């Protein structure tokens, strides 16, 4: 992390707030969020874009923040679960994930919810296939996904 390279100043919106930060060109967005900005909901799982535990919304779309270099987010909008209080889709998911028992260890949960939110933002009444597509990139080793899918379906119902 501490390489002697030119730092770059970037500015972006994080959870509704403007952030200006000096970053090293080799930092990932995940490094920047977790280590420098102390945003802890994106989790460090595999660091190669396989597990989805570090998912954030970059300009509205779910991305693996471990695969995005920090300088690339200059001018972008980043959203994590910390910034979604009051968002109706998020609130619905939050409730149904708890109600349906879709949370076990919780390591995949924030990322999973962001992927689900992206889906429900675009689809009012998603099909089973669409739900599966939406969270296919978010691995969960605890739940077997059954209750997660149920929770997303239930959230969709609540939002209608």
């Amino acid at each position, binding site marked *: *992390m*501490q*390489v002697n390279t030119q730092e770059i100043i970037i500015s972006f919106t994080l959870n509704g707030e403007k952030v200006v930060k000096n970053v090293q060109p080799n930092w990932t967005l995940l490094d920047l969020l977790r*280590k420098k900005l102390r945003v*802890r*909901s*994106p*989790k*460090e*799982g*595999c*660091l*190669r874009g*396989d*597990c989805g*535990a570090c998912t954030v919304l970059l300009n509205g779309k779910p991305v693996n923040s471990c695969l995005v270099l920090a300088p690339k987010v200059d001018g972008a909008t980043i959203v*994590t*679960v*910390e910034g979604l209080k009051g968002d109706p889709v998020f609130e619905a998911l*939050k409730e149904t*994930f*708890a*109600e349906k*028992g879709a*949370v*076990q*260890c*919780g*390591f*995949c*949960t*924030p990322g999973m*919810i962001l992927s689900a939110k992206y889906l429900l933002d675009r689809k009012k009444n998603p099909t*089973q296939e669409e*739900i*599966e597509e939406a*969270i*296919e*990139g*978010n*691995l*969960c*080793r*605890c*739940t*077997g*996904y*059954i*209750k*997660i*899918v149920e929770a997303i379906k239930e959230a969709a119902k609540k939002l209608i």
Partner: protein
Amino acid sequence: MTETREVTAERGPFFFKRELGKEEGEYKLVGREIERPDAFSKIMGLTKFTADRLTEDVCFGKIVRSKYPHALIKRVIVDEALQIKGVLAVITAKDVPGENQIGYAIPDQPLLADKKVRYIGEPIAIVVAENEYAAEKGVEAVKVEYDPLPAVFDPLEALKPEAPKVHEKGNVALTTIIRKGDVEKGFKEADVVVENIYYTQRQEHAYLEPEAAIAYPEGDGIRVVLCTQSPFLVREFVSRVTGYSQSKIKVIGAPAGGAFGGKDDMGPMVASKAALAAIITKKPVAIILDKEETFVASNKRHPAIIRYKSGATKDGKLTAVEIEIIYETGAYANRSPFVLWRATVHSAGPYVVPNAKVDGKSVYTNKVFSGSFRGFGDPQIHFAAEQQMDELAEKLGIDPVEFRLRNVLKEGTRTVCNQLLEESVGMEETLKKVAEAANWKKKREELKKYRKGSKVRGIGVACAYHGISTSRGVPDWSAAAVLLNEDGTITYRSTITRLGQGSLIGHAKIVAEILDIPLEWVHIEEPDTSASPNARPTHGSRGLMTGGTAAADAALKLRRTLIKLASELLNCDEKNVKLENGKAFCALDPSNKIEFSELAKETYQRGYQPAYYGFYFVPRRYFDPETGLGVAYCVYTYIANIVEVEVDKETGEVKVLEAYTGADVGKAIDPGLIEGQMQGALAQGIGYAISEEVAFNDGKIINPNYTDYIIPTVKDVPRKVKVVIIEKPYSSTAFGAKGVAEAALIPTAPAIANAVAHATGVRVRNLPLTKEKVCFKLKEGKK
């Protein structure tokens, strides 16, 4: 064989009904599904996993690992690494102040290899630096001079006399045995005999959160925070390695991002290194493995080779089994004595088998060590046992469910170890209920229609049983503490850890039920070896059964105190005092009452004891390791799975379409949490059955990531999963509960293999059932 019963306090459902003066239907928390109290904090990312506790002052330890599968270490040259800016120390075996020994059951495993390395990835040195980058650079700069030795990668090769010796005393780490009845006679009585060899693979736990520990020097002691399944075991290891007395070591069990047995074995190893680094550098040090290290260097599920011969009469009764079990332990024995014994004593499956000859061997090879993994030896042996059952049934022309029902263990029958099962034996009911839920008979016939074209369907069944807590009379106990605060809230302490399974939520429910207070009043403290009683490990599906029973013991003691106190305050006979909804009142005059908070205050004011230590000692009896006969476990959980699969005959792809999984759990403290455990175990079992295999090339793992090691995504699990809960309570535990966390995984792979056989007519006896293997078998079958 003696069968003297050790006397334990009767607990179980009847005891609790009497003690609480309630019928089961009147319980407010026990037996009811609740919303997890920790859900919101996890959703919001507020739950503090180990890595979430890193602060700027924490240094990093990175590990120098062996590049050879088998070699003598000539020299470790650290000078260049020490020149790197930010590097504080390079720690090798000679720097270990205590014992350089972390063998679990057999002292065969160094913390840091000194003379010899036995697998690729074995730790040799720890580079400690002010930041991760410097630590990584330091690892690259450490030079290890090796003298390579011939290596052995296959357990059968390792058993040959000319094989390279992984350890001086030879390549057999240990053996196990069962001799029961007369197998020769048993096979003579059999009308059909089936004999096959089964192979199972290495499975990686693949929890999303990597192993992590942060150690802080504190005063004359040390504090270690880590994701672990056993804080007290960590303390024992840290003490052994550092030479610090146990009282100077404080271990905090952080929530784990999945564990599945892996963090049971890895916790002490990672923590010992972090503690060592912190003591030597006098700075807080974090060791966090990266994903590749996790794959390369963490324990795996034992690969197995099982030769299995079984016989049955034409009326469908098992007569004998003869089984040879080889479990590959890799470079070190680790938990193998326990894993192999578990496999051995469960080797006949949940059936009555009058004659048995079982021989188990745990074999060293130059690969990463095997160890604890959900099921702990039972998935492998049931993969063999349950396919044998199907083949016998087929030869006899009996339906597989019916054939099993003719042989299942029931109360009053004896296991393969000749253990008399006195109570809580729900195999028959579980199998019947699961078959009913799956509509077995109808489906088994109907699916024969899906035999045309390239996609065919089949349905398969498998049963299993799984002993809870420790085996063979090895003592096991648990403890907990319940403290009544002056405002009426409860502080609850246990060192059962938070792996996502929710055992501590179950404990809290038990405490709240016994005191009849709202669940929110029970505050669960973080597991801490300096503050919490030793609940022992969170493994063997024991977290709720043993830890929860200790919680109940403490809560009952407090309850009795409160009743006595309330009797005094209300001027009401003790037998008429009721605790209900956070109040105490006199049954003869319910208006004569006192609030719980008032009661709490009076507890202190009037000199009653406000805190209790709860203890539970698991019943144990005689087991003879020379014959393998005796009481193997105090109680068992019984499981049945039925799956429907679709097999693409063109590609060999196996897809699980529907799954039904049931278990006799004794008493469901929380049916929702049980469902979660069973669905998750099923998914992990599907991965084990179809896609997961740690692959090697000359001792080097070639798929150390989620791209190449395939765990199930949402698309790989069945859309329909039905969980069936059977309750045959156990008289020794709180409300009759047994364990469930491992259960559903165990019969998943054999149920899938049996379903594939039903669909295609060919049998794959080699896990995982990859496309290649299924295709190959289908082609072979056509010949």
